[in-house]
């Protein structure tokens, strides 16, 4: 696999998450109703990790949900049906500050689908977006509030997040050339 590069290793991932957590804490005052909602796959595990760090900073539990966005995608009949995951949001989002957590921000279409899907669960006070990697190439007017790392990429390249939670031997973010 000479054509793949590790762009973030385990330490860098954890450092990026710690920084994102502090930025979230800075932007939203203590006591604000902040909830984290991760987008599978990847974003759900990252949301769990962020929650742990934020709980330490704030001294209060930060709830985590999982939001499947596949049913709200805009390209469903253009490619093979995506893998879908059960949505689990064990709290009311109405009036809360929802931080959407995704692994990679690319076209922005997943984020649009996520905001659409979230609407069916209530009316959040505001929605913020945290991503581990922003790789550019936006196709929609969407911008992340919290970014772990900006990575300039070519459109054909692929970025994968490997986490121990999903069975990988170690955490890393890999960039693969076509």
């Amino acid at each position, binding site marked *: 696999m000479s054509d793949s590069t590790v762009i973030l290793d385990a330490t860098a991932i954890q450092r990026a998450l710690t920084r994102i957590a502090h930025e979230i804490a800075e932007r939203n005052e203590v006591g604000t109703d902040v909830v984290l909602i991760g987008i599978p796959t990847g974003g759900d595990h990252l949301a769990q990790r962020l929650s742990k760090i934020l709980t330490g900073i704030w001294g209060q539990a930060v709830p985590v949900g999982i939001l499947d966005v596949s049913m709200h995608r805009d390209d469903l009949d253009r*490619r*093979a049906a995506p893998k879908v995951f*059960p949505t689990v949001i064990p709290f009311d989002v109405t009036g809360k500050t929802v931080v959407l957590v995704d692994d990679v921000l690319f076209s922005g279409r997943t984020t649009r689908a996520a905001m659409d899907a979230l609407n069916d*669960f209530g009316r959040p006070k505001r929605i913020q977006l945290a991503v581990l990697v922003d*790789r550019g190439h936006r196709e929609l007017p969407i911008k992340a509030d919290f970014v772990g790392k900006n990575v300039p990429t070519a459109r054909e390249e692929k970025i994968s*997040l490997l986490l121990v939670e999903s069975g990988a031997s170690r955490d890393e973010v890999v960039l693969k050339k076509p």
Partner: protein
Amino acid sequence: MTWNRKHLLDIESLTVDEITMVLDTARAFKVVGERAIKKVPALRGKTVVNLFIEPSTRTRISFELAEQRLSADIINFTAEASSLKKGETLKDTARNLEALNADFIVIRHSASGAAHFLSRVLDASVVNAGDGAHEHPTQALLDTFTIRERKGKVAGLNVTILGDILYSRVARSNIWALTKLGARVTLCGPSTLVPKTFERMGCRVTYEMDEAIRDADIINLLRIQHERQRKTMFPSINEYTQLFGLNKARLAKTKPDALIMHPGPINRGVEIDSDIADSGRSLILEQVTNGLAVRMAVLFLLNGGKGPQELAGN
């Protein structure tokens, strides 16, 4: 695993991975049904024709609701109100419906092979909602989903299917799905309705009710289909109930965690005692709930286009 099928015509031709993908997808759709807003936009702008040439209530309602919850537009076409009564052929009826730009045709028909036939003459995706005594794939998928959800697995379980096997598309589809997923299937009922030829499908056939259910983890009771019986395949309903009806005494001899299923409509007091149907061991109503999730999953998967799946962030 990528789903690349355009039609769902039977279970026989599905791979284990494909069956598993439907079941996994259905898990996500089941929780949609538990929300305040039970609708997703996945099939927005798509048109589904429900072509029910043979009477059906629960399957039709289940498909209709599944389609509505996926935001599809629906045309319902039933035998009573159709031009088939006026001499139109199935092919012409279907092509007329397709001329309305239908994307999906869900067909229930009394002739085995009707769904396969339509899939060959139409451009739309065809979903078999039961064809004659051949197959009823979504029923088998929802039964398998229910078993997997309650038992945590399908492989290695003993599943006994009781009753009218010969005329049952539910039995055939279930046998295919269960044996593919590694369950051990036992069939039992009057010998006229459970021919030994089913052993070729990888099942065990027995005519002793007590023996059939003794080691069962799942007991799936099928209705005696009066409408499909030729003449008398067994002497009387009373005798059937005595020999093959599930009552308290028989249930007491089964494993304590054996669960009861039935595709409905149930005939209380015939194949199942009323209080067993209403007991905590009965999965009958869960099957109805799961049927909705499974049918949403099937339509969602068939709606997918060609090519690879989208990868996260790519």
